[in-house]
């Protein structure tokens, strides 16, 4: 009700307020960054927030091509096939005025390799990072690594001096609930500086006038006000009323309404993100089920039956209103290793699913808890609710526990869930990234998001070898072979690839990024 009155009041004033606040990007989405610590939580919205203030050596543009950022150029070393040489941009300063040098890069890589870091899987092949002079670094890997630059697009550079002075060298223990200086303070090289932050309430950033690329990028936004709004209707109301002028996580039911409103636009693109369910097949007995002494999910027939019970087309038509593409594998179509054939391998077959359940000895069904986030993916909770009904049709009674992502994700990384929803985007555009996090057996520095308990020595060895395989054909053959295992094992139940919708006021100019990573320095404002 309050929103309605605000809407009416602001609608009357819309033209005048739009002029006054033209340079402020009032930005909202469903959830907040989990933390500002650059090396904790490899998670989309957290990276999005960091990308405004911190920078990696390289970023990607909306087509997926590399864009030099803190590195100006990079190439494999002529002397040693295991070494990449990165030349750093000169004259770059951190927000506190300190110079950005090779020493900071060495420090940031070391920090990102710490046990608490969530970025360590991406740089697991790196054995040493050396500063050669002030503006050159050599990165040595345990074998030739042709795709190393792909892994660095979310690896943010911190200032060694600032980090040490503020006693925040160690990456926070996120699962343990630790808060450190770096979780709430920022000293990056990025185009925007942090002004204030109240987690889950509001984060304010202002333009960094000293930014190295001040004249190379539009940078027309002078101030960013970022507000997480979990409730979908409130979020849309905020956009309609002009309270915000840029909206991620557009509710699919309101696309037509927003697009049809004068002064507002919806921009759309397929997203590099797949949504799926994980099942704990590794445990002897599950915490979250009603079967004693054995684990129903350990039986591949049960996992296949669960996949066959999911009616992906109904989810697309009704829950997603057409804004998704049903998936048969957990790789988005952007990714090297994706094939149309594997992505078409999921089908709905209730009778077949029931037969498989009976064959596996669970003809009477069983009950299990499904852990689901409610502020992360598009319609995450309604999808889980729909799955409850669909799995119920084959006798599986599902108790749904839908909670905010800040509590949901630690359950997966801490093995506290047996059946969960997860979404995965692939910033490297290569299957190795998926394998490293989701398929390799869980160890301290690899497989950290693999909550399935799957741990196959052959597959693990194949995944490890991908990093240093320079023969691209052989490498792609290995990737295909690993996918075959993942598919045959039904390691995950894929649901769909998301379609991305950004809602914005006509005054805001930006193209949709398939990784859902808006970078405000590219925004234009009318």
């Amino acid at each position, binding site marked *: 009700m309050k929103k309605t009155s605000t809407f009416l009041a602001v609608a009357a004033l819309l033209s005048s307020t739009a002029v006054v606040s033209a340079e402020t990007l009032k930005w909202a989405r469903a959830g907040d960054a989990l933390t500002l610590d650059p090396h904790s939580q490899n998670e989309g919205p957290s990276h999005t927030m960091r990308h405004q203030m911190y920078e990696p050596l390289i970023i990607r543009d909306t087509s997926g091509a590399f864009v030099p950022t803190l590195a100006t150029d990079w190439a494999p070393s002529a002397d040693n096939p295991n070494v990449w040489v990165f030349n750093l941009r000169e004259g770059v300063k951190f927000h506190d005025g300190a110079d950005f040098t090779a020493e900071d890069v060495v420090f940031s890589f070391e920090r990102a390799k710490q046990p608490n870091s969530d970025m360590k899987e991406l740089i697991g092949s790196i054995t040493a990072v050396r500063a050669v002079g002030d503006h050159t670094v050599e990165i040595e890997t345990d074998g030739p690594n042709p795709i190393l630059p792909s892994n660095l697009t979310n690896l943010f550079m911190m200032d060694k001096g600032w980090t040490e002075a503020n006693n925040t060298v160690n990456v926070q223990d996120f699962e343990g609930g630790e808060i450190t200086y770096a979780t709430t303070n920022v000293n990056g090289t990025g185009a925007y500086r942090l002004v204030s932050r109240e987690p889950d309430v509001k984060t304010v950033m202002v333009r960094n006038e000293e930014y190295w690329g001040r004249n190379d990028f539009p940078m027309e936004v002078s101030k960013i006000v970022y507000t997480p709004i979990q409730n979908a209707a409130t979020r849309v109301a905020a956009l309609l009323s002009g309270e915000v002028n840029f909206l991620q996580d557009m509710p699919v039911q309101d696309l037509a309404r927003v697009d049809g409103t004068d002064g507002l636009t919806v921009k759309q693109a397929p997203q590099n993100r797949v949504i799926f369910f994980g099942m704990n097949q590794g445990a002897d007995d599950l915490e979250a089920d009603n079967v004693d002494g054995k684990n129903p999910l350990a039986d591949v027939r049960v996992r296949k039956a669960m996949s066959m019970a999911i009616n992906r087309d*109904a989810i697309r038509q009704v829950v997603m209103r057409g804004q998704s593409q049903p998936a048969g594998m957990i790789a988005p179509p952007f990714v090297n290793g994706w094939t149309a054939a594997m992505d078409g391998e999921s089908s709905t077959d209730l009778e077949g699913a029931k037969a498989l359940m009976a064959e596996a000895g669970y003809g009477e069904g069983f009950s299990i808890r499904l852990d689901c986030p409610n502020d992360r993916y598009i319609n995450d909770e309604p999808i889980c609710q729909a799955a409850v009904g669909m799995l119920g049709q084959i006798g599986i009674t599902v108790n749904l526990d839908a909670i905010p992502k800040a509590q949901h994700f630690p359950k997966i990384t801490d093995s506290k869930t047996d059946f969960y929803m997860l979404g995965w985007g692939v910033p490297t555009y290569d299957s190795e990234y998926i394998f490293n996090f989701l398929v390799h057996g869980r160890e301290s520095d690899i497989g950290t998001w693999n909550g399935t308990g799957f741990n196959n020595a052959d597959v693990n060895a194949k995944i490890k070898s991908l990093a240093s395989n320079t023969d691209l054909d052989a490498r792609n053959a290995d990737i295909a072979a690993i996918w075959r295992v993942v598919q045959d094992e039904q390691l995950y139940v894929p649901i769909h690839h998301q379609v991305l919708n950004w809602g914005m006021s006509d005054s805001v100019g930006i193209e949709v990024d398939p990784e859902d990573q808006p970078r405000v320095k590219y925004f234009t404002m009318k």
Partner: protein
Amino acid sequence: MTDQPISAQQEQQSATPSRLRRALDSDFYYAFRRSPVAMVSAAVSLLLILSAIFAPLIATTNPFDPTSLNLMNGFTPPMAPNAFTGETFLMGTDDQGRDVFSTILYGMRISLFVGFAAVLFAVVLGIFLGLLAGYFGGWIDSFIMRTADVQLTFPSILVAMLIFGIAKGITPIEHRDQMAIWVLILAIGLSDWVQFARVVRGATLVEKNKDYVSAARLIGRRPSTIMLRHILPNILSPVLVIATISLALAIIAEATLSFLGVGAPPTQPSLGTLIRIGQGYLFSGEWWILFFPACTLLALALSVNMLGDWLRDVLNPRLK
């Protein structure tokens, strides 16, 4: 044992019921039949309560059975065939393909059950603590009433949310769905006992100095007997009035908690849960998911509240 206490007791017993009966027999019915508001409220309340009780007979589907749902039925407008399945629903369907009419009937059961049980819990607790405080006085009185004062400084919905949060934290997740209803009752009941305790304490203070209580004490009756057998029947009518009004408030409190997403589980929607689901689809024009549950909640809470108001006027004009 002599004759005197027995006769005193008899006198006491015969005095109370006759007063109640007199109210029921004459004034009460007279007032009821003279008040259109009371009659309409009673009829609406009765209709809603009966349809909730007989929901399985009236409802066309069982919305709490996830296996009976067909997602393709989702977002069907009222009285119009679904584009995919061709099925038609009186009040349309929600985002999961649940028939809104059936869901309202089943959801109302949760709302009413939670409302009644929570009020009963609050009444029992409030009477118990209020009698103790009023009868014994001293530090017991101070302790109970100061606790009540402290609780009164917090809005009751906040207290309920706090209790709900703690209870949710300590119940194992596997049992959370089954426990959610009981936790709701506990949370709303605990947030609501204060007003009963205060009224009962006040009335007890007045009653305990009356001759019949002194007499009972004189002959050596135990304090528990005096409180329950002698004082309590004399102070019940204000309690009944507050309880009726509290029922409407408890139904609303349950809806509020469920609307905020901390009440009934999403797979067993109560009226509040339905309204929460529905408000997400207001901008896109699927008004029926919110509209019908909201109207039902309004009718239910309003009729019970009006009935309570009328009861208050009739039974206890001093409370006005």
